[in-house]
């Protein structure tokens, strides 16, 4: 029950921060970090996959509605939600029967960083490629992917490092 409330709260706060603050960052004209995916990262590790997918779809669509990009964020977010379980399996070793909420403490610092870096990169890559919808400005799109991934990863790790055990 507590976990449910916690996640609803996290959903609302992350979407609000994303659309009201982060989407207005206009540094260099490229920088626009997307930290709302922290919601997907922080879902309990053994949450049924179908539920993760549906939550990801709702999350992505909410961001889409606020930023006039129907389907764009939904697509990228559903993709990382699908890849999440595999990524957790590859990078971490949680015991059978445990269902921790991913963080530095439960995953270990190294594993958690790998987990975040891999998924953020996939998400940003999909997002910016789809946004460009062509290979015409490939160089600039890749630059955007790298810069924004780096900033998103830093912010997410920053938030997580403040978290109590």
């Amino acid at each position, binding site marked *: 029950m507590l976990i449910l409330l916690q996640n609803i709260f996290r959903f609302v706060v992350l979407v609000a921060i994303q659309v009201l603050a982060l989407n207005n960052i*206009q540094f260099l*004209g490229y920088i626009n970090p997307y930290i709302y995916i922290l919601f997907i990262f922080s879902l309990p590790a053994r949450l049924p996959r179908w539920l993760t997918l549906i939550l990801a779809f709702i999350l992505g669509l909410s961001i889409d*509605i*606020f930023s006039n990009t129907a*389907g764009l964020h*939904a*697509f990228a977010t*559903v993709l990382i939600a699908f890849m999440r379980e595999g990524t957790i399996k590859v990078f971490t070793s949680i015991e059978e029967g445990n269902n921790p909420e991913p963080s530095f403490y439960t995953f270990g610092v190294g594993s958690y960083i790998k987990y975040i870096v891999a998924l953020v990169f996939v998400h940003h890559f999909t997002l910016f490629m789809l*946004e460009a919808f062509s290979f015409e400005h490939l160089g*600039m799109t890749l630059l955007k992917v790298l810069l924004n991934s780096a900033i998103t990863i830093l912010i997410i790790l920053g938030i997580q490092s403040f978290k109590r055990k």
Partner: protein
Amino acid sequence: MRTLFNFLIRYSVVFLFLILEIISFTLIVNNQGYQRSIFLSTSNSFVAEMYEVSNTVIEFFKLKAANENLSEENTAFKNQIIKLQNELSTLTKNQKKDSIHFRIPPEMEYQFISAKVINNSTNKLQNYITLNKGLVDGIKVDMGVISDEGVVGIIKTVSNRFSVVIPILNPKIQINSKFNHNNYTGTLIWSGDDYRYANLTDIARHVEFSLGDSLVTSGFTNTFPEGIPVGTIEDFNIKESDQYYSIKIRLAVNFRTLSYVKVIDYLNYKEQRTLEKVSEN
């Protein structure tokens, strides 16, 4: 049959994944076109209202600049009123009051509806602006939007109290514009990277112009009246083999600080459109 059933259950998550991705992708593809459902955009009233609340906070910090702008505009208007009053007083003497056929005089064809920007982006590939006026204020799809500085964009979707503008900073629209001094027209398209610049195409090799020349709307489309500033020439080049110049335009409007705009209501729009349609058929 049983194996098929087992197969479906086993891969149900994969199917769910594929279905969700297909839905998203369909939305993206449909979104490429010009028209889109109001439901999934910021003219949706819930979303727009949220933006309005957040905007009241941000607005506070822009008050000073806005004030200066307004007072400047005010003086300009006052000057204009005095000028018009003078003209009027000379004209009223010899005017007869027998006109039965009501006609909108050419100088009153355009009316302005002022609106406030409540959401705005400049760093995406396809940017949009949300305004706090909608159907009830008389705003309709395809109306032009300008600010005190120059052309902003065109109204795309309208709900009862809000509307969404496609600004020049979106490759979905192209603004037909011309040089102020020699009337050669070209098409203005945003390049997609810098919010200060756009590209002008269709200017042929023989046209003469120089850096700093100003560009205004052509008046050929019925969204903008003639002569509204679009920008100035920043840079240009032409290859040996090309027929047309590629020209870089510095836009007149600063889209980052945009806070108040005017929507243009062209009163003869309907009549002109119907006439044009009739002759096209």
